[in-house]
């Protein structure tokens, strides 16, 4: 079973974070509701100023993990630490963590301004301090003009900004975002992705962002923690998780891929009619080969380390700048290939890829 423990060495912190201190440390956290196991043995560190995305399908346990950090759920086992403080023993209102909720959860009876001031008011900050801080937070999300409106009078995207301002005005050490963009339409979502990311850089606090959208995760994150059926599948930078997926599931969930099932014997990999040299122990092996790493072969001679195969184009899907074509190879193997979108007939082609681009991945067995 492909369980990943995540000591810092393989958790793939990108270079600029390597020096930063750890802010939040999730240690062996598990959660079950009755017999239903939602999370098992999750260990994950979040660095100061890091944008970490918890990515997973619905039911993967990502929201539950976020709710454990926020304090709305208690873990069945394990600990959550923030610096020297044991976070999971504190009630939610004592944690220096703020949340942007999926449906914003703005207080309907309060104005935009009162919503943003809420955290400061309950903390009994002097009014002379509250007013400028609220003003500043509203300015930061470009909502100053709507200060006196009720939440029901502003659009979804604007409510989103208010929810963000309401959380950030408290200067938390960590901001949790529970699929905050899922209710927005595609254009606005892309715009907010960019804004959120630059806002995070500006305020310099750590974000834990939960989403099921792999593209969103890739665009925004410093690191992605891929969650599957309550277990961490891989924790790495977007580049790393895309280029070097650890498991078949990671390879398939993020982007398109071809999974090649083969056999290694005496330094040679054999996947049906395909063979290439690789320094691997003998036995069955699974490889991920990205569609963009397969080319239409040009010239007669294969370059060193490249693999060639003939096949027939069965289907073309136009994706704007590129085209995804399905090629059925000689022995029935189907490869998806990304080509510059030139169109063309369903004809015979010769494909070529570099054996170095076939990444060895672990199998992802079914989990109950």
């Amino acid at each position, binding site marked *: 079973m492909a369980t990943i423990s995540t000591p810092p060495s393989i958790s793939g912190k990108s270079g600029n974070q390597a020096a930063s201190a750890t802010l939040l440390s999730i240690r062996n956290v598990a959660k079950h509701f009755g017999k239903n196991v939602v999370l098992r043995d999750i260990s994950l560190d979040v660095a100061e100023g890091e944008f970490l995305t918890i990515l997973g399908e619905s039911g993967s346990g990502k929201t539950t993990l976020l709710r454990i950090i*926020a*304090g*709305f759920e208690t873990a069945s086992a394990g600990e959550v630490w923030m610096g020297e403080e044991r976070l999971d023993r504190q*009630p*939610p*209102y*004592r944690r220096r*963590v*703020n*949340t942007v*909720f999926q*449906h914003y*959860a*703005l*207080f*309907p*009876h309060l104005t935009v301004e009162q919503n943003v001031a*809420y*955290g400061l008011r*309950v*903390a009994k900050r002097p009014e002379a301090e509250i007013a400028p801080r609220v003003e500043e937070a509203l300015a930061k999300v470009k909502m100053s003009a709507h200060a006196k409106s*009720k939440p*029901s009078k502003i659009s979804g995207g604007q409510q989103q900004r208010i929810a963000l301002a*309401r*959380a950030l005005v*408290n200067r938390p050490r960590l901001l949790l975002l529970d699929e905050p963009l899922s209710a927005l339409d595609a254009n606005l979502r892309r715009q907010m992705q960019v804004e959120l990311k630059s806002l995070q850089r500006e305020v310099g606090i750590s974000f834990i962002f939960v989403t099921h959208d792999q593209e969103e995760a890739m665009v925004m994150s410093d690191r992605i923690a891929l969650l599957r059926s309550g277990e961490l599948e891989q924790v790495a930078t977007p580049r790393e998780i895309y280029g070097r997926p650890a498991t078949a599931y990671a390879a398939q969930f993020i982007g398109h891929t071809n999974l090649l099932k083969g056999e290694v014997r005496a330094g040679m990999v054999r996947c049906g009619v395909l063979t290439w040299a690789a320094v691997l122990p003998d036995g069955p092996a699974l490889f991920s080969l990205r569609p963009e790493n397969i080319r239409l072969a040009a010239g007669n001679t294969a370059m060193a380390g490249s693999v060639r195969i003939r096949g027939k184009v069965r289907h073309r899907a136009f994706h704007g700048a590129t085209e995804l074509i399905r090629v059925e190879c000689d022995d029935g193997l189907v490869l998806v290939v990304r080509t510059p979108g030139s169109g063309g007939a369903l004809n015979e082609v010769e494909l070529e890829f570099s054996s170095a681009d076939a990444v060895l991945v672990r199998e992802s067995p079914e989990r109950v």
Partner: protein
Amino acid sequence: MFSRAYKAAVTLPPLVWVTVFLLMPYLLMFCYSFWSVSASQTIEHSWNLANYGQLLRVEVYWQTLLRSMWIAARVTIFSLLLGYPLAYFLSFYAGSKKDLLYQLVIIPLWVSYLVRAYAWKTILGSDGVLNTLLQYVHLTKHPLEFLLYSPFAVVLTLTHIYTPFAFLPIYAALEHIPRNLVEASHDLGATPGQTFWKVIFPLSIPGVVAGATFAFVLSLGDFLAPLLLGGPSGIMISNIVVSLFGAAYNWPLGAAISFCMLLLVVSLLFFSERLEKKWSFS
């Protein structure tokens, strides 16, 4: 979409019903309130405002009306004080026992009003359960007389009877509060107490207004509880109306009082509706 004939066929019966059994009696009552009773005990159809004048002049009428309002106000306050915590507990903390407890609150509504009123009679009377107990444990030497046949007994009984009516709209309002608002409040650093006063209570105000209106209007017009348990000092305005339409045989005056009550209740409903609207945000 539907033919005119179909629409007419559907709307006519209720319209006729409301006209014959509601609007016409009201109109008749309104007319009666301007008539008078002659010395020979017949209704004289001479139009004048004498009945309304009498209502203002004769002390017992407006004093009883004021007392009825004071009793209704106390019933309202006690019903809210009992109903709100109950509704809050059920909605937020009862967990899996919620449905069972809800049924337990509702069940008394299925028991006849009379049975419940008489039950209080046996509890509060001078030979009643409570007095017997108090004397048995030597807390009192003689039966406490103020327990029964007093405004106290009326307020107690009406509170018992109308608390579920106050509870229901409050419970509905609390159930409608999105739970993520409570989480958001905690998330922003508010303690459970702050969360209650700043989020939960303001959002439940429409339910409180509706519940208070129910309790006040229903107990203001009540005549059975004061009749059975009120005694001379616990008489309410409806008892006077009943006797004017009955033994006293002064329908015109009874109609005038009824009409004033109706006006009072309708304006109350109007204001509570306004208040509810002002405090609802959906």
